[in-house]
């Protein structure tokens, strides 16, 4: 699927590539960053059909250590390994420069059933659960996205989303696959350097999560002179409707294609999109399934919902539905557990033209600035610290009720620290007693 041409690669990449032999390697732990070197490593490993665990460059060393224990990767290519180096005896250092390469002293003679890419379900809470995305999943979703966005070799994009994140990675995949140009930068949209690059390289395609578009609005994006932009696409959660109006209007005036997209890591990246010509009339919709995909709604008894405007759980079927989850190396011996069908956990309805709308969530997750946060997970972690807590709220604003007044400041700081998200996303409130029903189940509807 992906190609790499050796004499077009950087020396830094070739030095790393030449120090290990791919023959004995089945599983690699790779830390992503927005650089050309990372994209070379990633593409090269893809051509070798090796399983790759992709993690953020911000993952703490204690979590990396746990991953190494659970997955026993044959090779680790990490940004820094210093802090845990002395705690892991089973590895030898092959290389130490921009990346540190560590090889397992004794390879594990096992069989990984289906080579895959392993992506974390939540970017920042350090969840140990990874989605198993097969090479076939990756290829199917990449081709489908290229198809509906019409990505061409003349397109140019810039990495403003992290590449360990399924959405960010899908932008890289689709542009590499189409032979388009990708500008690598660690600068964010609030930095002058980012916009200098956009102008200098005549970037044509911009992608973002809702928070990106909130920032763009605040930094007066609509007054910027960016004549080369041809496509703007938003995914990673629901954008505020008023803001969406602004972008749709702006883009239709400027002749820019504006896409709203919907997806989950469990579906490799994308499941549906709103075609630009429909964006004016289908505001707030997640659109129609991507090419080769199909939606169904299931009611509480798992029967298919056939009527428009009737709520059911959104179920997606397609070749990009991942194989399942993995938290240990053993999980990679498992066959495909989903068979191309994904229960999204989102509650949705469709209108009489077949456009889908998300109305709520079946599961208890919130998105904070594009990061999916499990409320259950936070409650459990707080419980382990001896704090009784109930989490809820809306996207980008998580409210936590606690029963110990003196811990309010502590919990606020702790939430920000554990999720790596700024404390303005969290509200911590005091409550005398958490409302529960007879069986002890928390009555969330009384709190949120």
């Amino acid at each position: 699927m992906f190609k790499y041409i050796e004499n077009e690669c950087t020396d830094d990449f070739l030095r790393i590539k030449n120090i290990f032999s791919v023959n004995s390697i089945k599983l690699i732990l790779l830390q992503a960053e927005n650089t050309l070197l990372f994209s070379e490593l990633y593409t090269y490993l893809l051509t070798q059909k090796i399983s790759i665990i992709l993690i953020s460059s911000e993952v703490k060393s204690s979590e990396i250590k746990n991953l190494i224990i659970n997955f026993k990767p044959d090779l680790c290519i990490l940004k820094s390994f210093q802090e845990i180096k002395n705690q892991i005896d089973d590895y030898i250092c092959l290389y130490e420069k921009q990346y540190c390469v560590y090889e397992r002293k004794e390879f594990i003679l096992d069989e990984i059933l289906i080579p895959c890419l392993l992506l974390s379900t939540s970017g920042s809470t350090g969840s140990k659960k990874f989605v198993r995305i097969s090479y076939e999943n990756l290829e199917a979703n990449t081709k489908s996205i290229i198809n509906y966005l019409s990505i061409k070799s003349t397109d140019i994009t810039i990495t403003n989303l992290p590449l360990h994140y399924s959405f960010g990675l899908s932008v890289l995949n689709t542009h590499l696959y189409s032979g388009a140009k990708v500008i690598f930068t660690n600068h964010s949209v609030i930095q002058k350097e980012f916009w200098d690059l956009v102008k200098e390289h005549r970037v044509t395609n911009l992608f973002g999560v809702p928070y990106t578009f909130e920032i763009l609005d605040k930094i007066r994006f609509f007054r910027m002179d960016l004549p080369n932009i041809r496509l703007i696409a938003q995914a990673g959660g629901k954008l505020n409707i008023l803001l969406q109006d602004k972008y749709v209007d702006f883009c239709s005036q400027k002749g820019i294609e504006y896409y709203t997209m919907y997806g989950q890591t469990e579906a490799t990246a994308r499941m549906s999109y709103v075609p630009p010509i429909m964006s004016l009339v289908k505001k707030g919709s997640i659109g129609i399934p991507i090419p080769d995909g199909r939606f169904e709604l299931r009611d509480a008894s798992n029967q298919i919902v056939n009527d428009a405007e009737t709520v059911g759980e959104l179920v997606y079927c397609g070749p990009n539905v991942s194989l399942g989850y993995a938290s240990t190396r053993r999980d990679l011996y498992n066959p495909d557990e989903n068979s191309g069908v994904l229960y999204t956990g989102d509650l949705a309805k469709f209108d009489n033209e077949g456009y889908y709308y998300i109305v709520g969530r079946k599961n208890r997750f919130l998105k904070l600035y594009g990061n999916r946060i499990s409320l259950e997970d936070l409650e459990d972690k707080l419980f382990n610290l001896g704090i009784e807590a109930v989490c809820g709220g809306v996207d980008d604003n998580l409210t936590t009720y606690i029963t110990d007044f003196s811990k309010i400041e502590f919990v606020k700081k702790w939430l920000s620290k554990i999720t790596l998200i700024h404390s303005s996303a969290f509200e911590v409130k005091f409550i005398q007693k958490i409302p529960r029903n007879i069986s002890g189940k928390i009555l969330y509807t009384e709190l949120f």
Partner: protein
Amino acid sequence: MSNIGKIENIFRQEFNLDEKFDLKTLTYQSIPEWDSVGHMSLVASLEDEFNIEMEMDDIIDLSSYEVAVKTLVKYGVE
């Protein structure tokens, strides 16, 4: 309180910094709290405090505490 004191306070509050922290060394992304979310929250607080609306170029150029102080002078905050 002087304006410089107000700016200092906003920075310390936004990024949970105590009195000992030397703001002169503070730059964008030099601490985990000053990320893009922290940045927009900082800009909003500064705009509210001094009742100003900053231009895009100033917002994206505001890369350190010292630059912030200089930028605010442009908006009449001295």
